[in-house]
């Protein structure tokens, strides 16, 4: 692929995680050298991209040296010594965690988030913390209190959001992979807009412990990666029951990397559902063309196309902005300036609350807190929150009915390619519609992945592949086959 924002061939930062691990295993690369290569790229390119909020260079070099020692001692592992970065809402002991907000400016957590802890245990090397929409509320990274990350394909455009810094960093080879979170599309949409792979696992697959909460019943951590195989490797490292997260699933974790490795190029017998609602008005024609072509590629690989309908998905955005904001209004109540984070003193308690929260939160966060508070208020509770939760059940039932007739559902990840910074900030509704194809899946709780499917107007397009609960192996397999048959850059590099 040409025109991409990637590291030049020969730069170890151009390697996928799996490729880098192989080179380290072969002895042609050390984690120290790889980490230095990434730090050099960060130093050179991040000032323009603003993908990183915090770079932990010294810690990274120390962790890389430790990984090299572990490898010298005979240890091996798919992520040992592989440098990565975290969306800045995973808590990191001793490293500031801002959630993209002034409210948490300077906040240093005491504990590591569980997915981060698992990656560190696997020997992965943390490069730093990535830009994001404030408290993950946004689809463009523009609600970040630290300025937006920029799309490496066109710095005048948004990388998407809320995991915009993560997608930009992976696309620009500023890390081998990143961990993001997806509440309404916040992994998949920026992955699509930046031309990388983004996976939102089934709700409960990955522990939420240590993720700064936005909407607890929707939030799920997942990888942004250079290709599908890397996404599977990262998922294997972070997935699995956490007794300290009561919503994490206590069920066995399949070997996702093995499912990807065994994918081959044949999808014979597989039924792919194509929902009419995902190809309706509002879909950019060039995006539609790229996605239609991808569906044909899947058919060419042996998959059978099944026309399906997700009739309640038209309500998904409305339901989401009631359920997510209601939960957020409670989740963000703790930021009162009394125990940690930003505080604006005042002799009067209520004035202190108002000033702390008034100055600490940005406009979009305030909008959602107000909306969620309203949705839960006496007299409106049933009409808004109550009805939204009932429609949410119907949305899930739609997916269940559809997934009884097909193995995966495919469609566009985003209705458009990357939009210009500032283009939608004045129109919240237009911004909310950026997630029109991703939100329903969070409401259902099911897994979905965005894989690059070509360019439209020189900008990446994402193909979304959605699966049954715990159906990540199938989703990853389909994505891997697509990646192979489409002959995309990431597969070539691996």
């Amino acid at each position, binding site marked *: 692929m040409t025109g991409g924002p990637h590291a030049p061939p020969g730069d170890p930062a151009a390697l996928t995680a799996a490729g880098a691990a192989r080179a380290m295993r072969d002895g042609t690369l050390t984690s120290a050298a790889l980490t230095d290569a990434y730090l050099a790229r960060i130093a050179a390119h991040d000032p323009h991209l603003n993908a990183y909020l915090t770079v932990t260079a010294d810690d990274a070099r120390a962790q890389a040296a430790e990984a090299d020692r572990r490898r010298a001692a005979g240890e091996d592992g798919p992520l040992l010594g592989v440098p990565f970065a975290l969306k800045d*809402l*995973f*808590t990191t002991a001793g490293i500031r*965690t801002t*959630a993209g907000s002034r409210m*948490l400016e300077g*906040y240093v*957590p*005491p*504990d590591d*988030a569980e997915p981060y802890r698992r990656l560190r245990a696997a020997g992965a090397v943390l490069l730093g913390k990535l830009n994001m929409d404030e408290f993950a509320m946004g689809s463009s990274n523009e609600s970040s209190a630290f300025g937006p990350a920029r799309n490496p394909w066109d710095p005048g455009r948004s990388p998407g959001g809320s995991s915009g810094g993560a997608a930009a960093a992976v696309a620009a080879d500023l890390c081998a992979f990143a961990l993001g979170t997806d509440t309404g599309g916040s992994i998949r949409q920026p992955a699509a807009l930046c031309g990388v792979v983004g996976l939102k696992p089934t709700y409960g697959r990955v522990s*939420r*412990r*240590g*993720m*700064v*909460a936005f*909407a*607890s*019943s929707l939030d799920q951590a997942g990888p942004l990666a250079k290709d599908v195989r890397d996404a599977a490797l990262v998922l294997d490292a972070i997935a699995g029951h956490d*007794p*300290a*997260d*009561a*919503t994490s699933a206590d069920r066995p974790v399949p070997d996702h990397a093995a499912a990807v490795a065994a994918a081959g190029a044949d999808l014979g017998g597989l039924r792919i559902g194509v929902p009419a609602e995902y190809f309706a008005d509002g879909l950019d024609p060039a995006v539609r063309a790229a996605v239609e072509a991808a569906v044909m590629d899947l058919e060419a690989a042996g998959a059978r196309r099944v026309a399906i309908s997700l009739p309640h998905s038209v309500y998904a955005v409305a339901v989401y902005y009631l359920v997510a904001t*209601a*939960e957020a*209004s*409670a989740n*963000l*109540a*703790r930021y*009162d300036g*009394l*125990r*940690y984070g930003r505080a604006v003193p005042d002799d009067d*308690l*209520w004035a202190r*609350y108002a000033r702390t929260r008034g100055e600490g939160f940005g406009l979009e966060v305030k909008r959602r807190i107000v909306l969620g*508070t309203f949705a*839960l*208020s*006496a007299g409106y*509770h049933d009409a808004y*929150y109550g009805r939204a939760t009932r429609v949410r059940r119907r949305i899930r039932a739609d997916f269940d009915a559809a997934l009884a007739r097909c193995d995966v559902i495919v469609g566009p990840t985003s209705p458009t390619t990357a939009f210009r910074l500032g283009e939608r900030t004045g129109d919240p509704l237009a911004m909310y519609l950026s997630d029109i194809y991703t939100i329903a899946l969070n409401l259902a709780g099911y897994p979905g992945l965005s894989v690059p499917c070509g360019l439209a107007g020189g900008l990446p397009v994402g193909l979304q592949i959605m699966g049954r609960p715990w159906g990540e192996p199938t989703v990853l397999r389909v994505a891997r086959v697509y990646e192979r048959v489409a002959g995309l850059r990431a597969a070539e590099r691996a």
Partner: protein
Amino acid sequence: MQAAHPPSDLDAFELVVGLETHVQLVTASKMFCACAADADLAAPNTRTCPVCLGLPGALPVPNAHAVALAVRAALALGCTVHAHTRFERKSYHYPDLPKGYQISQYTRPLGTGGGLDVDVEGRAGHVRLERLHIEEDTARLVHAAGETRVDFNRAGIPLVEIVTRPDLRSPDAAAAYVETLRHLLRWIGVSTAAMASGALRVDVNCSLRRFGDPALGTKVEIKNLNSIAAVRAALAYERRRQAACLARGEAVAHETRGWDEAAGRTTPQRGKEHAHDYRYFPEPDLPPLVLPEAWLTEQRAALPELPAARRGRLVAAHGLRPEDARLLTRDRATADYFEAVLATDGATRADPEATPPGPGAGPAPAPATSVAAWITGPLFAALYARGLDVAAVRNHLPPAHLAALVALVASGVVTANVGKRVLGEMIDTGSRARDIVDRDGLAQVDDAADLRRIAEGVVAANPKAVADYRAGKTASLGFLIGGVMKATHAQANPDAARRAVVEALERSAGG
């Protein structure tokens, strides 16, 4: 004229009271984290973690033992326990609430219905319950020197909130309800229910209406009453205040008031200008709480026989008076102790290791009533004097020891007074009654030959008293009996001593 509260006003209105009681459960750790739940014992803010401080990213994990204790409380109160329930968030801003919401239960509480039998001034009554739910405690605010500090040790300690229906009609009834509830919760071992430490806290809702009026009056809430006396006094004050208000033709304000212990009155609570809309919704960090039937059965089995049943059985099985049964069930340790005393062999013999004190029948078994009398009388008095309770003394005074002592007295080996003295030493040293009696030679002297010899000696040694007696001064008889008691170190049976003196006087007169 506001100060006067004419009695006629009080007589015209009926007080209607409902109570909300917060009860801390006795668990090793908090409701949703592993922090120790010993707030009172620890220095401020030393029992905290990211979860109970509400740090970003922290998640709650329910304490299964706390749920078990809550279920036992609900069962003991006769509630319907719901196997499918859930936690909900109750939102409000206050410094004592680290997350800005309290994890509680609202639309689907753990228990609904049920009630508590409460005797008020000797009349049996029943207080119906609305609900019982689980929630987490808030932090404790400490106001001092113009500052307010927050101690998060208490934040997250498991609570149950028990809400009555408006079934109470007097300050005494409300006080009796709290007393009965406290007793029950301690009995089943789910809470210390100590009001002074805040393990049991009472909010009362009260209103007045004209007698016969079916509609309830305007409700006033009085928060955080921390003693039964405060419950009684605050309600009595509110009854007078509201009656005076209504008698003046004014409306009672719907408000929350606090109890000013020192001033002896309730005052409107400040800081309530923010009307509360708690915006409850299901806690998304916790899956629904589903209690398997087998687990519920285990909790039911873990409940001891409840106080009312226990009292009934003590009366029916052992022929106790109801008031003695009540005394013996003041706590479960005492009731268990009583029954353990009855169950020992020692209750039927003076000393299991001694040979029976004579040919023929041994001493009669000590009846339950006399064991009851020993526990509620001398034992309670001795414990009270020492600041102990039955549970604390059970090692020093095993049931068999008390049984043996009661049998020694019942069979006349020692007098009741000697028995009481011996009991004190048994408590203090753990000695057996028989050992103390033998060591100190305390056995009662009622051998007729001995007494006869002693009485003759006393009569011979006191000619003046004998002469006075014969001259009609009957008081001299007491003097002579006193001489016998003195000579026997008060171990003589008083009746036998009297008989011996009278006989000795007759013999000396005849001789």
